[in-house]
């Protein structure tokens, strides 16, 4: 059995680092991990995803309708990946839309209210993170990934504690970023 997580967002948002933090924290707990990432051209502002499978799994990719948790860095990307969520699964999402240039030069428009309403209607276990408030309070927009991981670790049975994730942060990030990410990890505690 494995605990299956999908991380999704827009190229450049830090989904790959988040999946590495999850993987390292799990390995330190003695668990096997397999992951798969979007790498290459799609990273240039395109939709990106990572599949993270913690525990025994024969394959790095997760089937549709089989993910336990979706961590979305962007609300439209949460909807795009929603078909992967199993019934009763959890979604942790940022509420801050990233509007692609395509939506302003003739492509489909981006109506963030409709997107958020849809998520609220469809997902029973939904955790919404106010990304703008987090960026303001923490003084940086770059640690959204860790804010979301913190929220996820408290929202569901990840099997990873905040301490486990903190140890992974210390392992993968330079020391000058530890303090910021420590605050980011605990950021949503008051709202959980």
């Amino acid at each position, binding site marked *: 059995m494995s605990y299956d997580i999908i991380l999704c967002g827009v190229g450049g948002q830090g989904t790959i680092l988040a999946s590495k933090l999850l993987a390292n924290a799990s390995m330190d707990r003695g668990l*096997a991990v397999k992951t798969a990432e979007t790498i290459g051209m799609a990273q240039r*502002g395109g939709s990106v995803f990572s599949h993270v499978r913690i525990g025994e799994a024969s394959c790095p990719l997760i*089937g549709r309708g089989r993910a336990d948790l979706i961590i979305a860095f962007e609300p439209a990307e949460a909807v795009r990946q929603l078909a992967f969520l199993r019934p009763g699964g959890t979604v942790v999402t940022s509420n801050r839309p990233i509007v692609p240039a*395509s939506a302003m030069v003739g492509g489909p428009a981006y109506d963030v209210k409709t997107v958020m309403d*849809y998520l609220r209607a469809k997902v029973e276990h939904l955790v919404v993170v106010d990304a703008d408030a987090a960026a303001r309070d923490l003084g940086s927009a770059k640690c959204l990934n860790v804010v979301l991981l913190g929220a996820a670790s408290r929202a569901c049975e990840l099997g990873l504690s905040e301490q486990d994730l903190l140890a992974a942060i210390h392992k993968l990030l330079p020391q000058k970023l530890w303090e910021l990410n420590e605050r980011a990890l605990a950021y949503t505690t008051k709202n959980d």
Partner: protein
Amino acid sequence: MHTEFLMGNEAIALGALAAGVNVVAGYPGTPSTEVLETVAKRRTDDVYVEWSINEKAAMEVAAGAAYAGARAMVTMKQVGLNVASDPLMSLEYIGVKGGMVVMVADDPGPISSQTEQDTRTFAQFSKLPCFDPSSVAEAYEMVREAFELSERLGTPVFFRATTRVDHGYESIQVADPAEWRHNSPEGFVKDPSRWVIFPRLSVVNHAKIEARNAQLSQDFSSYERNFITSEVGEGVRRGVATHGINYAYVSENLSGACQPRVLRVATPFPFPEQLAVEFLKGLEEVLCVEELDPFIERQLTYVCGKYGLDVRIRGKLTGDIAPSGENTVESVGAALATFMGTEPVATPAPDPEAPTLPIRPPVLCAGCPHRASFYAVKCAMKGKKTIFCGDIGCYTLGNAAPLDMVDTCLCMGAGVNIAQGVFHTEPDTACFAFVGDSTFFASGITGTINAFYNQANMTLVVLDNSTTAMTGHQPHPGTGRTMMGEVVAKVNIEAVLRGIGLTVVETVDPLDHKLAVETVRRVAAEPGVKAIIFKSPCVVLAKPQAKSHVDASACIGCRRCIKELGCPGLTFVDGKAVIDQTQCTGCTLCEQVCPVGAISGGERL
């Protein structure tokens, strides 16, 4: 031994280092790039590594090293193999002394490639053995086995993985550097009867290769990575033949009281024929679960004919597996359920109530100098009959609205001579070829000489951002750095062009929009082959100075900045343009485009 969380490509690199590889050469290309980068990062001082200027050069460097007894590896993506195929097809006849692994990353989907070609088929075409791992852990182990086989048989061998293995991560056991094999090359031993290819040598060696491959098919039938798992359930007469990551998809979907017999093929060529016969014995039907070519399907169909076996072989050719694109856990699950006559695992149907989502194709980054270059040419040539031939790199993304500045894109370096071909057909068209700096070195130079020599009238536009941006910023001859960490003389693009004979070569900063437009107008009006070098650093590498801001009281909401440039850093909120400060690099292009001077503050790099 110790445990590491590794990407497939990192595991391949560490496997090669543990196998005592001496020389590694390659050309970057998704999904292969990280193999060579990891060799460079983790190597001991005695291992030589280079980014070559293209795959042909890399193949020849590796071959020369292997002639001298080194263990050598060459890395590339599948389309790179086309570039390297000239030396490889002859090397097949000559062979090697040290082990030589040709690592090729295939890209079903394709996710970031032009083609869905299958290196297993290329292995058969070139008569070279081929390894095809199913997981990160297996890739690590298999590289050593590939080197051993190569050295034992004196032939280069293919090591082929697909994107999901190359870019999958697993926590696996790897050797400590102290446990790595040490290989001391004997050196090149002169022997014209061995190393100089002539028709007489080729015909003799061709016969030897065919005999070797027949024997190898036998040997591979007992290779432990080619295996059969037994069927589960009374009277199950069905089998599944699969390979690579598809084996993982099949395993993920098999459960319950009724399961097919499974053949996992790790060496598609030479095909393990005897093992296949054993697998087929007693079966009525076989489903081949493959990506790219129906390679195993054709092999099994052939084996059935050869041995008179009455087994129906199904797969891509019978419409049971999609003929193109990438397989997924659920597409394989559905195909298996249909084949076994079982209930498929329910997967959610698309929700008709789901909101329409914005499309998010990859775009040029905010502040990317390529945007400014394309925009300058667009403005300069407005209203004229033009063709804009693009090439392979980030700048292929110049095709998107609103720039719409890439009319053609074929393969590395092709744009130069496509533009030339259009000119010879319609001389009244202003023909432009856009090429990046790394692509110029890879295969743009010969094309430029061809156009110059054959009296074309066209403008070459070199988009020089001083790196290989698309694949993750690898050094190239123009950067003055090598993969060994040396600082070396830079190859100067302007000097190369002047050396060819071009007399009009102008270097200009594309972010100085007015000057860039004037330069394009002036240069394009000259006769013959002329060149503009747009020089400005890749924004991913450079640190922004000051960013641009919109003065909301001055913005008239005309959207000109958004409509002209399509920069992802520009949005429109409450009737005014807004600049996303997390993305802006202060390139100032929008400041120069704004008709009322409402944007200011940026400082270009």
